């Protein structure tokens, strides 16, 4: 989760910026109040007061300044919210803790390179090399005497020790089989362990009673502070005596938990003399040395033990203690369900963002922007009204190309198609037997015509797309409004309702328009009304525009939005039904025409022509049989296709 720190730092910067702007705002208000007080006391004349105030406000009113600061602070908060969501998402999707593992074992020689911090007293695989005293031990000495607050201060000192540890290669351990001596040792150890612990606890209590940690609501009691005995002389001797003679039989029992060890460790360190780096002469010939020597000759490896509290545990505990109780109390109220819900929300936003297609310039568009920009700008300056309509149509058609780029593409398209027309038609006319002048003239004309056709195509395309969209919106709008009315009657918020409609994808271009509203709210952070206004301004359908604007005005005037939806749904359905009825009546008229012209008339003509063909003769210089064949295979199909086209063209939008 490396990004989290970067994001958190960004948030902290933004928070400090918020603090600064809040300070500025407060400062302004206070200064103005002070100025007014002083004016009231008569220190300034009204003119001086006005002058100073004008200087202070720099031509703006107090409300304007406060609005400015507030809006900027809110903007910063929005940014923080975005970063915070990223932090949450990253933490939620991180599962690295699952893959945590145990360090592998290494040959026996390696542990000597980096001895374990506290095991110097217990096991000495190599007595000769000077043992580096770990910095973790004095740390506990310091912590003994310090207050809980001081623990927090002491923590950074632990970091270098950890860094040094990290610098060494990992100690790989091998399990060893216990020898007879070990088994005896274990037996005695188990026997005396309990007694030893009790004795030591009594010693500690006698020296100084363990101060109980203050009962904190949400923090478990972890006695990080270990009491230091005030008179450690006697027990020190006793322990050192036992240690010296019975160390192989009666070793210090390993604490059951790291916390117990934490309590115990400082005591040991106080009772015993701190071990000096290097080799002590007396120990050279002690039992420990002989056992080590024997073990070394046998090639037995020593097992690494970790009798210390993990640094992470201390850090975590420090953080927990440092946290404010009220914040912790609020945090504890957050349930796993709330976390899952939030994660689902953020995930859906992130997925939507991934799904969003960012505008990617095409090669043709980029090339047009580079090559034709100047010509296009010249044309735009010369004919602004002509291109203004095109720009508007581009927006209504929802063509995802920048307006200037589209003009550049159009100009480049016209030029290139003209050149292509000249080339192709030039080649075509050159192979004909036409005179050279005619070839040039015709090639030129055809090139111009090709260019004009390209221009017409480019210019008409947005309008055609716009009409197509308008038709789709008008057709689907009554059903979409009905859906909205049904959803809103259940009390769902408008944004959720729009989201549902846009996700359903059942309403053609209406879904596309509503998706724009959702995107304005979710991604650009617009409020719903602004988003509705923005979409109403760019929709090609007048009905939909009317519907959205009505929604805005209903909300702004405090009207009942549910009633509005219901009313609009009824209206839209009534219109739809009426339009359909009208169209059905029109269709029935067309049906009569079709029956008369395309069914009865051909039958009559075919029958009449068949009779004429029996008699023989010609009609208009053509054989009757030929006329029958042409009528059956050409004229009647052509009329049918024409009729279908007519029906398609005259079909109403609804």
């Amino acid at each position, binding site marked *: 989760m490396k990004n989290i720190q970067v994001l958190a730092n960004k948030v902290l910067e933004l928070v400090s910026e918020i603090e600064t702007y809040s300070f500025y705002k407060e400062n302004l208000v206070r200064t103005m109040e002070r100025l007014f007080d002083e004016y009231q006391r008569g220190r300034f004349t009204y003119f001086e007061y006005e002058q100073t105030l004008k200087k202070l406000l720099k031509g703006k009113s107090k409300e304007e300044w406060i609005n400015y600061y507030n809006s900027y602070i809110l903007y910063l908060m929005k940014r923080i*919210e975005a970063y*915070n969501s990223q932090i949450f998402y990253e933490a939620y999707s991180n599962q690295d803790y699952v893959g945590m593992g145990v360090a592998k074992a290494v040959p026996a020689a390696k542990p000597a390179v980096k001895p374990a911090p506290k095991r110097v007293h217990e096991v000495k695989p190599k007595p000769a090399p000077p043992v580096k005293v770990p910095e973790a031990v004095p740390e506990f000495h310091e912590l003994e005497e310090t207050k809980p607050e001081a623990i927090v201060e002491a923590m950074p000192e632990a970091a270098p020790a950890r860094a040094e540890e990290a610098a060494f290669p990992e100690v790989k351990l091998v399990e060893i089989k216990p020898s007879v001596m070990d088994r005896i040792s274990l037996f005695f150890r188990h026997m005396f362990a309990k007694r030893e612990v009790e004795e030591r606890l009594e010693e500690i209590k006698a020296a100084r009673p363990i101060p109980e940690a203050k009962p904190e609501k949400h923090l478990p009691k972890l006695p990080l502070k270990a009491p230091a005995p005030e008179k450690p002389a006697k027990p020190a001797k006793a322990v050192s005596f036992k240690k010296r003679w019975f160390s192989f039989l009666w070793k210090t029992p390993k604490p059951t938990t790291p916390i117990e060890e934490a309590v115990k460790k400082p005591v040991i360190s106080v009772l015993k003399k701190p071990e000096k780096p290097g080799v002590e002469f007396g120990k050279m010939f002690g039992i420990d040395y002989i056992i080590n020597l024997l073990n070394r000759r046998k090639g037995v490896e020593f097992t690494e033990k970790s009798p210390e509290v993990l640094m992470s*545990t201390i850090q975590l505990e420090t953080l927990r203690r440092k946290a404010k109780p009220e914040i912790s109390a609020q945090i504890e109220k957050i349930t796993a369900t709330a976390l899952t819900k939030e994660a689902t929300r953020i995930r859906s936003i992130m997925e939507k963002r991934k799904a969003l297609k960012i505008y990617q310039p095409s090669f043709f568009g980029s090339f047009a922007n580079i090559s034709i920009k100047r010509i296009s700008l010249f044309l735009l300056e010369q004919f602004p009204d002509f291109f203004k309509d095109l720009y508007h149509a581009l927006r209504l058609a929802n063509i995802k190309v920048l307006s200037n780029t589209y003009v550049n593409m159009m100009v480049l398209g016209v030029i290139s198609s003209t050149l292509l027309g000249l080339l192709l038609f030039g080649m075509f006319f050159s192979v004909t037997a036409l005179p050279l002048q005619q070839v040039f003239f015709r090639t030129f004309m055809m090139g111009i015509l090709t260019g004009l056709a390209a221009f017409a195509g480019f210019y008409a395309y947005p309008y055609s797309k716009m009409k197509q969209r308008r038709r789709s919106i008008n057709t689907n709008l009554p059903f979409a409004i009905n859906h909205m009315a049904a959803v809103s009657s259940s009390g769902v918020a408008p944004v959720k309702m729009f989201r549902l409609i846009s996700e359903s994808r059942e309403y053609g271009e209406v879904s596309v328009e509503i998706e724009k509203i959702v995107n304005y709210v979710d991604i650009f952070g617009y409020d719903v009304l602004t988003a509705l206004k923005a979409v109403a301004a760019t929709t090609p359908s007048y009905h939909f525009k009317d519907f959205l604007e009505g929604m805005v005005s209903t909300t702004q005037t405090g009207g009942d939005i549910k009633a509005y939806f219901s009313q609009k749904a009824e209206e839209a359905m009534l219109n739809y039904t009426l339009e359909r009825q009208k169209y059905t009546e029109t269709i029935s008229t067309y049906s009569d025409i079709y029956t008369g012209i395309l069914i009865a008339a051909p039958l009559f003509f075919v029958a009449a022509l068949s009779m004429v063909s029996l008699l023989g003769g010609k009609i208009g210089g053509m054989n009757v049989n030929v006329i029958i064949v042409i009528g059956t295979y050409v004229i009647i199909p052509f009329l049918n296709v024409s009729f279908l086209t007519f029906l398609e063209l005259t079909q109403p939008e609804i």
Partner: protein
Amino acid sequence: MSRAEDLSRHIIELDESMREIASLDELYNELVSSRAKDRKELTVKREEAVFARERILKLSLHVKNLLTKLESHEALK
């Protein structure tokens, strides 16, 4: 408590929560990248990592709630 004081208290809380998130993340990264010496240590470290992660999540949600409170705060209207 005045509006401004309440607002600044919220901002301080926001700052502290974010600092704690940063510290917890650092700790989590250390825990995840380190190798435990034995099973027991591994269990402890894993539990700590899980705790740190959950705390980050909860703090983040707390920050979100704080921001919602701040946005609707009267001092910013």
